[in-house]
């Protein structure tokens, strides 16, 4: 200890007495303990913090795997007017406070969602003497509901919620609007009762379909115009007759899509029909397909009206797409089946903004499904009676269940991440609007109702593609360089070469990326032939210079002893490179009709300026030092007595390398390659800057790619926290972490083994 004993006057000893010594020992012991615990806790904290990375990333990803949860909170009778009044359609608004039922008698009743307390009632207008005969509704987000009447008329209603903030509290006032005016419109001029109606809001107005009780199909298109001055709304429209269903089939369900081009009809013979109604003068039945799953008992468009959810009497739930075939005709295509419910399907309720839907059956079971990811998120019994109607809120947090007993159940729902599943991440998925299953990464887009396409395959392939071309460039240069530096090079030169290449490892990749994107990419584009000629002539030149050197007179050769080959080659390398670049435009003129890039394009090879070749060179450059440094260590540490023995037995230098050095050091070289691969896989900036970042699925060296890491860098800052997209990006990070961690650990273990082997030799 540093305490100095004070000089004490008198005859006392200068040394501390027993008491002081004991005290000193005590403090020293305490300090020792303190140091032990302090260091241990700090050390463990650091190790823990590093371990936390794994756990945290995993905890962010874990909710993706979870299905849905539904818990019925409350049940109350649906009685506002009379017990016999049945609800035909049920709606819940986005703040999950107000529910609405559309009754068979033409009333819209609003009530408090949590307890059924009535709020207000609207009566939908009708002509005298007419009665309500049917109800139809569009995609939920539009809030359109159409009532069909017994006299062939139709009334369109639109649900609207007005928000106001008196006293800083939110007040929601529900109301019913009539977009086509306060009077019903005539859909069937023969005055037959409408047995089925369907409606959809289109870009130009409203499309409605009515099926009369004698089986005729009527298709109407309406548009409204508001007078700028008076604010008066005028409605105009036309109604056309559609051809009847074949074989005298009866219509069970009818749906029209948002483009007002396709009509899908389910009949009573277990078939689906698609009508092309894009041309008003020529309405045709395009196709009829059997469902193969029994009678259709429920059918709804999912958001965006690109696909249909269909439920049948066998309890089967399936999704059908409108697919454009090569002749530009749309056909119905079954794309996926979901887990069946036990009873016949009674109702399907699509979600507002996602490709999910909820299904109820005769036995009171509820199914929650998601289209894109083919997931069945939940199948559970939520009611004792057959379910008649379901209403999910626009934010997917609450559910209203209406069953045949006239009870409304209100349930809380947890269904945050239905969009991804193993199959949607790693397998081909048939997306809406595509003609076949594909791997696509397109997580977001400006429009509402966009189907997010989150396949990790293009990104993973992009990562491997970038790493592959980088390794193609880096492995030969790195290993050959390491071999030479460690084994052939003179020590003096080695002392210069090794640190300079190792400094390159610390070079910020953003600089390599920027040079690759702004300098190398345009340069290569203009000097493509140079790339290939350098590839051919550079090695040739090296061998020729070597041969020429061996023919030189002894006097010159002894000036540069063995081990200086690299230095001798520098000038020829510069010359060859310069020559190839200078000749490049000429070569383009001589062999490729003026432009090699054009030449490639003519042969059907597409060429992007920022492509895999650029990435390969730039990232290869970043990887070379990693490979070089580890491989060099492995070769350099091969025990000298092995190589000297080989040389003594008469082997040439190269024979010694092939026969002794390489076999001994190969695990080290392998681990160097793995380390390099690990670095190439995770590199972000180079790929971000040197490619176009388009997620393509191919291995064309002249096209770009998008890697996992670059994708994270591009998309994560703009993603909503805790959304599915956010968590998928975390999953991408976890994949990267796991991949590099495994690769690096393997490399490290191999290296440690090798070290042990060397020490045993």
């Amino acid at each position, binding site marked *: 200890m540093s305490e100095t004993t004070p000089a004490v006057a008198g005859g006392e000893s200068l040394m501390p007495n027993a008491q002081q010594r004991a005290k000193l020992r005590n403090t020293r012991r305490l300090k020792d303990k303190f140091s032990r615990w302090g260091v241990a806790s700090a050390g463990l904290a650091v190790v823990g913090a590093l371990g936390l990375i794994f756990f945290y990333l995993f905890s962010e990803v874990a909710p993706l795997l979870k299905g849905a949860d539904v818990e019925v909170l409350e049940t109350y009778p649906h009685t506002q007017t009379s017990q016999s009044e049945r609800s035909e359609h049920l709606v819940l608004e986005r703040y999950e406070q107000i529910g609405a039922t559309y009754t068979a008698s033409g009333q819209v009743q609003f009530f408090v969602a949590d307890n059924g307390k009535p709020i207000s009632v609207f009566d939908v207008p009708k002509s005298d003497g007419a009665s309500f005969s049917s109800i139809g509704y569009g995609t939920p987000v539009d809030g359109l509901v159409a009532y069909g009447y017994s006299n062939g008329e139709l009334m369109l209603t639109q649900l609207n919620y007005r928000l106001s903030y008196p006293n800083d509290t939110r007040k929601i006032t529900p109301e019913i609007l009539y977009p086509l005016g306060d009077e019903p419109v005539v859909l069937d001029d023969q005055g037959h009762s409408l047995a089925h109606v369907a409606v959809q809001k289109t870009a130009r107005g409203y499309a409605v379909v009515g099926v009369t009780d004698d089986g005729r199909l009527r298709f109407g298109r309406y548009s409204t115009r508001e007078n700028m001055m008076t604010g008066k709304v005028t409605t105009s429209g036309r109604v056309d007759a559609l051809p009847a269903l074949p074989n005298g089939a009866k219509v069970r369900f009818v749906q029209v899509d948002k483009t007002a081009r396709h009509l899908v009809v389910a009949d009573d013979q277990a078939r689906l029909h698609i009508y092309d109604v894009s041309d008003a003068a020529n309405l045709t039945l395009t196709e009829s397909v059997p469902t193969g799953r029994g009678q259709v008992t429920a059918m709804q468009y999912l958001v965006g009206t690109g696909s249909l959810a269909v439920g049948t009497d066998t309890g089967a739930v399936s999704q059908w797409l409108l697919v454009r075939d090569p002749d530009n005709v749309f056909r119905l295509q079954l794309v996926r089946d979901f887990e069946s419910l036990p009873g016949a399907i009674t109702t399907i309720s699509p979600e507002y903004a996602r490709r999910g839907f909820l299904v109820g059956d005769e036995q009171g079971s509820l199914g929650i499904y998601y289209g894109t990811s083919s997931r069945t998120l939940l199948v559970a019994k939520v009611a004792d009676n057959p379910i008649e109607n379901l209403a999910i809120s626009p934010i997917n947090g609450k559910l209203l269940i209406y069953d045949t007993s006239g009870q409304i159940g209100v349930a809380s729902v947890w269904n945050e991440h239905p969009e991804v599943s193993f199959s949607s991440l790693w397998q081909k998925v048939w997306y809406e609007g595509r003609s076949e299953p594909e791997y696509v990464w397109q997580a977001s887009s400006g429009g509402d109702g966009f189907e997010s396409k989150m396949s990790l395959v293009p990104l993973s392939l992009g990562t491997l593609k970038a790493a592959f071309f980088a390794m193609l460039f880096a492995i030969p240069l790195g290993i050959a360089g390491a071999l030479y530096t460690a084994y052939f090079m003179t020590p003096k030169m080695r002392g210069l070469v090794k640190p300079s290449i190792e400094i390159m490892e610390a070079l910020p990749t953003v600089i390599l990326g920027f040079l690759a994107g702004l300098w190398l990419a345009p340069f290569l584009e203009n000097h493509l032939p140079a790339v290939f000629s350098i590839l051919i002539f550079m090695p040739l030149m090296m061998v020729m210079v070597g041969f020429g050197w061996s023919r030189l007179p002894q006097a010159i050769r002894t000036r540069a002893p063995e081990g200086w080959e690299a230095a001798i080659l520098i000038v020829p390398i510069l010359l060859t490179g310069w020559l190839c670049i200078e000749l490049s435009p000429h070569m383009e003129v001589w062999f490729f009709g003026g432009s090699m890039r054009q030449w490639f394009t003519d042969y059907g090879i597409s060429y992007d300026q920022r492509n895999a070749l650029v990435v390969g060179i730039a990232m290869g450059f970043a990887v070379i030092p990693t490979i070089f440094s580890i491989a060099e260590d492995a070769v350099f540490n091969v025990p000298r007595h092995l190589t000297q023995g080989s040389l003594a037995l008469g082997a040439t230098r*190269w024979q010694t390398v092939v026969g002794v050095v390489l076999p001994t050091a190969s695990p080290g070289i392998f681990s160097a390659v793995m380390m390099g691969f690990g670095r190439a896989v995770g590199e972000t900036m180079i790929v971000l800057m040197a490619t176009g970042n388009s997620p393509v699925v191919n291995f064309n060296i002249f096209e770009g790619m998008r890697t996992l890491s670059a994708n994270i860098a591009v998309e994560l800052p703009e993603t909503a926290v805790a959304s599915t997209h956010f968590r998928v990006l975390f999953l991408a990070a976890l994949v990267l972490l796991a991949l590099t961690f495994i690769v690096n650990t393997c490399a490290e273990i191999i290296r440690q083994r090798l070290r042990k082997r060397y020490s045993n030799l």
Partner: protein
Amino acid sequence: MKNWFKSGAPWVWLNGGAVALCMVMVVGLIGLIAIRGFGHFWPADVVQLTAVERDGTEQQVLGEIVRSEVVPAAVVRDSGYEIAPEQELVTRYLIKRGNRDISARDFNWYLEVGMSEWQNPIDAMVIERREWGNFYGYPVSLKENGDVIARVQDADFWPQVQERIERSLDLHDEINHLEKVEIGRINHKLERLRLERRGLELDGVDAATLAAADAEFAAERAELDEQYRVVKAERDELYRQLKRDTLTAEVIDGSEVTITLQNIVRLTRPNAMGVFAKMGQYLERFWEFLSDEPREANTEGGIFPAIFGTVTMVIVMSIIVTPFGVLAAIYLREYAKQGPVLRIIRISVYNLAGVPSIVYGVFGLGFFVYFLGGSLDELFYRESLPAPTFGTPGLFWASLTLALLTLPVVIVSTEEGLSRIPSTIRQGSLALGATKAETLWKVVVPLATPAMMTGLILAIARAAGEVAPLMLVGVVKLAPSLPIDGNYPYVHLDQKIMHLGFHIYDVGFQSPNVEAARPLVYATALTLVLLIIVLNLAAIRIRNSLREKYRSASD
């Protein structure tokens, strides 16, 4: 010859060639950055020439030659030029014409075919402007409040111009000071008042206290408003003075334009300058680059905020990473029980150095920014919610993320240093009766200090060059103010910063006019490369000297 091949000599030459190629590339890369980076500051000559346009018309061009390239004639023909059929190759020049406000394209390619002789007119001037980039043209006259006071023929024209530019630059500096420092200070105080009041409200103090506090706040606010009025009046006066002088100049197509002097950063006549004048100019520009703020969406001006941001972030990171890294290394080496578990931990920690940096960024964004930062805001910064204080990317989170990223580097290096200390020294200390802690802190750790320094320097070098994680946790293209200033609490850990590496990415790839930004990107890259090479060389030097020291100690 057969024998020569049989001996494997070609392979040796090929291997040697690989090393030579690597070295050529390394040197070439550094050289490329150095030449382009340093070249950026050299005042290039202004050339005047006549070139033939696509449609065959002749055009007068005044500007700087940026670079030239040889392309096959077919490419040029495809883009619409008339080239004689026997000609196979064409040389073309990229000329920086400037005058972005007059003609839309400030960079243009011109073919050598049909190009006239290059002239270097002595009167041609380059004006660096605050807006619209450079101006190239000929001076006509200098005006004060619209009255001509000097013409280009006058002898005192150039001194007059330079003198007045000096004046407007001074005024500009003053305004800048007022706006950034004075008004910034007042705004800062006003914002603090607002937050204090909101804080009282949230604390739920009774109406009387709140009213009393309100009165106090109102008084303070009135005082600040008064101060603001004074400063603003001062500033407006300066602005008025600034508008006094204008320069009339002639563009190469013959039209005249008026440039207000307040818009001029620098006016030079490169063709009239000698080598020494150019060197002076070079140093001036170099200094401006290092010390000035960026202009024109970062594509011109300096990179001082980026340098400052990088350095601040690295310092904060060092403060965090050094103690933890060193303690963790000491624990792993000295205290932890050596065994298979520790071996796994050690390999894992070492491997974390190889984990992609973007993964740390993702972790930092999710855990630090959203989770920790969000909780901090809830606890301590409730008054400024919903605007996040720490719940958004910023300096502290960037530093913390980088600290995590560089922990393995420091741990590995420190452990290596600890393991190199001969056990005899340790045993000697213990034999003299020192406790383990005493041996550790008084003997072992001081001896291993150089290794820790090495680790720290390597960590700094890595952190300074890392960009990918920072894009997620706190670096922005343009930070409104520096993270350290004269306003309480002086170091703003919650502020977003600018960063050299990100600056390169942003200016090079996100800016609308890449061609104009290119030289600046090279110069920025050069700054970063130099910084990192120096740091690494220092680390290597320290490590080598350390090795030498213990080689002799252990012998």
